[in-house]
């Protein structure tokens, strides 16, 4: 039973990842195709459609192979086969994208060497100002104060404190990303405000979810309340925020991208030592990516990857 559930989970994860991969070349900015600057209307040409078709065929091939390996890993309980399925899914799809990009490169059009910037010097703020940022942290603090006042009702302190610490850590992470976009990205980026609004909304969502989750064990809920109501509600809110953001950014796709084509390594990683920006808008999909030529990006990435591991380790330790 566990093996069947495990295999199903792995297969669904790989499938979702592959569907996303197959879909990304379509979620691009105007004038960009496979991370290459192309002439207006090129994406609708027969050549572009042929490249997209063969890209999707390759993605399908990788997916089938990865799914077979994932099933085999569950069948034979082999972690190496599981690792192989992940490698095939990730590396195979990246290779498919790279091949698509290589085919598109001969059709590339020259990029405009012109850049412009505003001389405005107004204060830079996250949406809603600092009070809006402080709010989610106050929410967690309020949950903490409430818990300390009813500490005698807490049966197991570990998950309760875990919820609060996880919430605070996530908030700090989101705040750091927000500040990174605010101070380390171009003000002219068309989707900058949408991205900041998403981060601030997530800040409130995670705080509210963590606070409620920490307090919930103090009460006995009526039987008719589904046990997983809170995580599903949180996921639904997050999905609604993302759906709104995707709809908003679709309207802004016409804006010109000033990052040079040759600085998009493998079509997905931005590396430009001449560009002082820490974060730049992605050429497809939604959100920002690091400028890997900026040494701060490596530091931030290290903190983003290591900090959750330390946190998880500490939670497991206590």
């Amino acid at each position, binding site marked *: 039973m566990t093996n069947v559930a495990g295999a199903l989970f792995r297969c669904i994860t790989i499938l979702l990842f592959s569907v996303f991969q197959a879909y990304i070349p379509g979620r691009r900015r105007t004038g960009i195709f496979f991370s290459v600057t192309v002439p207006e209307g090129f994406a609708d040409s027969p050549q572009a459609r042929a490249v997209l078709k063969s890209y999707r065929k390759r993605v399908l091939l990788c997916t089938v192979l990865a799914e077979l390996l994932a099933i085999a890993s569950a069948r034979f309980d082999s972690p190496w086969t599981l690792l192989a399925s992940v490698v095939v899914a990730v590396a195979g799809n990246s290779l498919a994208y790279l091949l698509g990009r290589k085919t598109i490169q001969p059709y590339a059009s020259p990029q405009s060497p*012109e850049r412009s910037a505003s*001389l*405005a010097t107004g204060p830079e703020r996250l949406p809603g100002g600092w009070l809006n940022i402080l709010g989610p942290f106050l929410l967690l603090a309020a949950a903490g104060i409430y818990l300390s006042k009813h500490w005698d009702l807490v049966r197991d302190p570990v998950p309760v404190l875990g919820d609060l610490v996880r919430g605070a850590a996530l908030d700090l992470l989101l705040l750091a990303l927000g500040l990174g976009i605010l101070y380390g990205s171009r003000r002219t980026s068309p989707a900058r405000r949408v991205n900041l609004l998403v981060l601030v909304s997530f800040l409130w969502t995670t705080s509210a979810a963590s606070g409620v989750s920490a307090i919930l064990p103090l009460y006995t809920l009526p039987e008719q309340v589904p046990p997983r109501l809170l995580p599903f509600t949180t996921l639904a809110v997050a999905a609604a925020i993302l759906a709104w953001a995707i709809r908003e950014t679709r309207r802004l796709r016409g804006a010109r991208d000033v990052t040079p084509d040759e600085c998009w390594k493998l079509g997905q990683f931005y590396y430009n030592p001449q560009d002082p920006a820490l974060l730049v808008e992605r050429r497809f999909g939604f959100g920002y990516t690091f400028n890997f030529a900026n040494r701060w990006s490596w530091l931030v990435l290290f903190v983003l990857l290591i900090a959750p591991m330390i946190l998880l380790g500490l939670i497991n330790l206590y």
Partner: protein
Amino acid sequence: MPPPLLVRVDLGSPIPAYRQIVDQIRTLILEKELVPEAALPSVRRLAIDLGIHFNTVAEAYRTLAEEGWIHVSRGRAATVAKRDLPSRPDPDALTDLRERLRHLISEMRATGLSPARIARELRALTEGLK
């Protein structure tokens, strides 16, 4: 609300990027679009927005400060200086400027503009700087 003042840089131009920034900010000051005491964006902010190296913008601000158009001090925003124009131009500078103008006018003629049209263009631009 008036539209924000913009600085444009053409990375394909033979004129260095820092010089393009200097020329545009100087023009904005002379046209009184930028008034004395007005703050300019920090070097970091302008460099990020233009997608060019910090040193390029720093060099532009240094040049403007040396020419007396802006004040730059560590840890504070660069501001437009109150600068009176000299009552009599420096004769050496005048010779140099005349030479540059001569080249520019030749370039304008080469594009097919008539001398009368060039004179009109120059007059209009000079009026704007009064």
